[in-house]
């Protein structure tokens, strides 16, 4: 509560202290008027974020955007209208309030005059006062979908760093407004001598009361919140490669599948991709929360298994695996560095018997490697119909691969194809489905090639997606100023209510050692 008040104070203070320009914008916003006369421009307005022609969920926060270039001095007025409703904003930044936006959305959903009451789009007109008078840029439309989106999103905010780390936070953001809160900040458990890294937050079907994340180094361990009960676990055993890394909660049962990885990082001297992250070994394990036991799932030495995920019914465990055999007499790791482009992952799955906690034999479901590709991060839609992947030319860490795109395919046929509607020329990598399966969120670096931002797109029952739109922010310039990436965007059905300090208290305790059980 107090942190919210502080946040508001900060916002209030910042609007007092910070730029005169902002003040001018606010003054300009007080009584903006659509110009009485103007010429019609032929081009769409150059706005950031690009919300031209997007489809948004009924419960999404207002789309705040700015006319580019942001430092230009021309006067700008923006009108949003739908049916009888209208919002007019002055200034280069169009920032309708939540309540105004909701009115507009309600008008859009009320539908048109036809018998079918088809939802009407919101029309956006941007007027700019140029040297030769007012110009109306070509108007564009924003469609509103009656399909709602899960109201919270969590992500890690991290500098797109290489080796060093300092402050990392796992944040949660209400998608219905601009409320952003910290779930956990690693500085709470960091000391100069030993820092703490945090990663891989994950939830059981978006349930904020069933979550986990890892802390590494200082006070390291896996922190699990299971219905409000916090426990810190050490998943590293003598029989496993590492502690749990990439997690996948079983959709209903108290199991979490993990990959275990030995990960390395190298740097490109010239390639614009800049960084290559790869595993030198990886396996799969299953953690039983109730028994505090770890069992092996896959540990073939020639296979690099990673990124487990469950089918919605919990009866299949999907994962990625690359086959790699040493060819030379040089050190294995040196050969891997030389042949990093040979690491190509395909998609596999294994049947799971929850009663016996056993897995059946593996079967390949999508042979990306044979196409010279590498498929990672399988995610199955909640209705079990669609499989979404991130596909690049090699490797498993596609966030650093510009050619990485989202692919989609029918689970029944496993015919996968690039998802052209959502892809860009830059990286598309981490992705997930909303609980109703009508929305996806994914990480993309399409803004500038380096800083990851979350994008959303609507998916219909036939697997067609609408044009993706970037997470709306209160200040539309925020993502252009922010020197951090959004990492692992995950939908949540509500906010995590445990305080960061409580997480820190739990992390400072001794971990409970998981027991390895051979099967």
């Amino acid at each position, binding site marked *: 509560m107090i942190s919210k008040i*502080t946040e508001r104070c900060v916002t209030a203070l910042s609007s007092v202290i910070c730029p005169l320009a902002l003040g001018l914008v606010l003054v300009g916003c007080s009584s903006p008027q659509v110009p009485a006369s103007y010429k019609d421009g032929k081009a769409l307005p150059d706005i950031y974020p690009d919300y031209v022609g997007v489809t948004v969920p009924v419960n999404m926060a207002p789309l705040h955007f700015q006319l580019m270039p942001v430092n230009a001095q021309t006067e700008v007025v923006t009108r949003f209208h739908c049916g009888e409703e209208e919002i007019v904003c002055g200034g280069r930044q169009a920032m309708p309030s939540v309540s105004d936006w909701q009115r507009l959305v309600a008008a859009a959903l009320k539908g048109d005059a036809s018998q079918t009451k088809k939802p009407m789009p919101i029309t956006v007109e941007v007027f700019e006062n140029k040297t030769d008078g007012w110009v109306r840029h070509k108007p564009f439309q924003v469609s509103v979908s009656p399909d709602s989106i899960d109201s919270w999103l969590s992500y890690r905010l991290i500098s797109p760093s290489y080796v*060093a780390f300092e402050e990392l936070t796992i944040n949660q953001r209400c998608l219905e407004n601009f409320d952003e809160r910290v779930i956990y900040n690693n500085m709470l458990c960091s000391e100069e001598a030993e820092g703490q890294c945090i990663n891989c937050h994950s939830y059981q079907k978006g349930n904020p009361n069933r979550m986990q994340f890892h802390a590494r180094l200082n006070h390291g361990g896996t922190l699990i919140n299971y219905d409000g009960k916090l426990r810190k676990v050490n998943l590293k055993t003598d029989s496993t490669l590492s502690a749990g890394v990439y997690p996948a909660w079983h959709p209903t049962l108290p199991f979490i599948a993990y990959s275990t990885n030995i990960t390395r990082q*190298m740097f490109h001297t010239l390639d614009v991709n800049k960084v290559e992250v790869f595993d030198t070994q990886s396996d799969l394990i299953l953690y039983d929360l109730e028994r505090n036991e770890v069992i092996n799932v896959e540990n073939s030495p020639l296979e690099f298994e990673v990124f487990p995920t469950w089918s919605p019914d919990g009866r299949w465990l999907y994962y990625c695996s690359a086959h790699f055999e040493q060819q030379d007499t040089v050190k294995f790791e040196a050969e891997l560095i030389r042949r990093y482009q040979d690491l190509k992952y395909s998609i596999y799955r294994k049947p799971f018997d929850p009663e016996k906690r056993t897995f059946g034999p593996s079967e390949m479901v999508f042979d990306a490697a044979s196409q010279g590709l590498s498929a990672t991060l399988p995610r199955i839609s909640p209705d079990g119909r669609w499989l979404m992947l991130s596909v690049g030319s090699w490797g498993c860490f596609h966030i650093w691969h510009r050619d990485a795109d989202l692919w989609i395919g029918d689970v029944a046929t496993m015919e996968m194809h690039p998802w052209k509607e959502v892809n860009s020329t830059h990286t598309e990598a981490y992705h997930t489905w909303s609980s109703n399966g009508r929305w996806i969120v994914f990480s993309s670096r399409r803004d500038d090639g380096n800083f990851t931002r979350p994008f959303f797109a609507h998916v219909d029952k036939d697997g067609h997606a609408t044009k993706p739109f970037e997470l709306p922010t209160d200040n539309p310039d925020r993502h252009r100023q922010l*020197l951090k990436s959004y990492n692992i965007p995950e939908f949540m059905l509500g906010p995590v209510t445990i305080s960061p*300090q409580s997480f820190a208290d739990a992390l400072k305790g001794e971990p409970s050692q998981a027991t390895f059980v051979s099967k």
Partner: protein
Amino acid sequence: MFMKKLLYPLLLCVAALVAAYVVMVSYESYYMAHVEKLSLFLYTSLFLSQKLVVAGGMLSYVGAWLTQFLYVPWQGALAVCVLCGLLMLVMQQAFRLSYLWAPLLLAPLAAVLMSDFMLGYWVYLIKMPGYFFGLSVGSITGLLAVWAFRLLIGRHWWLRAVWMVLAGAVLYPLVGCYGLVALVLMTAMEWRLSAASIAQKAMLTTVAVVVVLAVPLVCYRYVYDQTPIESIWWCGIPLFAQGDQTFGEYYLPYYLMLGACLLAVFLPVPRKEQKKGKALQWATAAAGIVLGAALVYVCNEHWYRDENFHKEIQMEAAVEECDWDEVLGLAATASNPTRQIVLYKYLALFKSGRIGKEMYDLPDGGALPDCPAVLHLVQLGGQHLYLQYGMQNFCYRWCVEDGVEFGWRVKNLRLMLRCALLNHEWNLAQKFIDMLRQTRNHAQWAEEYQPLVGHPELIAKHKELGPITHVKGSYSVLASDQSLIEKFMLTVLSSHTTDDPIGAELVLVSAIQLKDIQVFWRAFNQYAITHPDELMPRVYQEVAYLYGHLENGVDISRMPFEQSVKDDYEGFMALGEKCKGMTEAQMRSVFYPKYGRTFYYNYFLVRGLRTY
């Protein structure tokens, strides 16, 4: 009497401030401008909100804002002096010092100057934004609260209690522990000056203790989420630690400031001073003068004057301007250069096209930075070297690493902008241009790069970036420098294959520095092919001549070496015969006068230089 009481402190303080100003402007201009580049202030609400996530965040914000003035050193020095003057004034008012104790007012000035100018290389490792003005702004704020408390002495004791609670609750979030220290001073003042009863004083002490303990704890639990509980009482003070090691000497200015304030509380009040006898007054005045002299001495002793440090900073400024003559001029005056200075020298020689002739004209060196903490070249000027040698990915990487660990700096953003342009990452370049537009001092600089966005042909013609495009390698490899850039850079650069004459020369000079014979011959051939009608520079001839004799893998018999190259080789070897039995150090002094500028000397007698 009135004039004496007013004039003596005033003259003393003004004289000290003027002296400090003159010294700063005369000797520390480059340093102050450098500090500005290691800081960042953006006129955006996001920047403010990012600073306010910790207690003392406003201190960082204001400090970072003031740091901008260091860009123009006379303005920066003026800002320091004005703040110190204010600090003296507030201290005088808060403690109502007797004029005889006026020299104590020099303590805040000494503390501030020490905190700013004793850092040396630590300036690269400081994590607290706005550090340069932290002590002055924090102390002024804290002492203002003490002054207000003093004004309440003589009134109801509970008013002072309320003030303590208010001051703690407001000042701690704004200026961190300076607010808590103010409470300590208030408590001391209460016991020293107040006519309240013992019970009331005890009550006020209890209030202060509770506030000092509780406010940070409450803030930790309910307000902030970025400070570990162990550090909540030290917010606003920079951490001088690396790994397990703490460097206590850098806290001296803080102890000095606190000590001066505590002393001021317990000094006799002015009225009592007047009642003293003449002799005692003289004694007090003498003690004050001794104290003032001691302060000047301590400040002077802790002022960091390392020649190499200051030279590196000047060289970096010259590299930014592509003023290669200036870089070489500075290198020429370095008596015992660090690797950073030597590497800047090689860079300037290469960029100005003089390296083939003058590579060894100036002595090599390997002095370590005069810093108790561990430092790497890449934290100093290494990022510039990476950029200038066309390894922009590694420059970018270390800018990010630095930004993550020490906070974003103007220096990082300026370099990252150039990396993005060289990589043709136009949107990324635009991002950095737009960010730099939000700064006070670098907006115009960034504006000059705007036309390059989306225009590789303009980049190719650009004064700084154009030459870099010639030395970019032709293919990418996966590598890691392990924080030791010198050997890594030479290895990568010497492996490039290129048909660009400028690029080929860089490959060759890298191979020469690497002292790897096989690598040299490949680079030498590449250089010869790309410079068909040019006279082979003397240093390259020397290397070929020596390696041709050391290993018979390459036939040098038909290479047209200058006679002086051959003569020097023969002479060097003959002298070597004569010097058998000498240590390397002895040989160096014998050989240097005649052969110090040759590769022969460098190859045989310059070895074991430590890089970092």
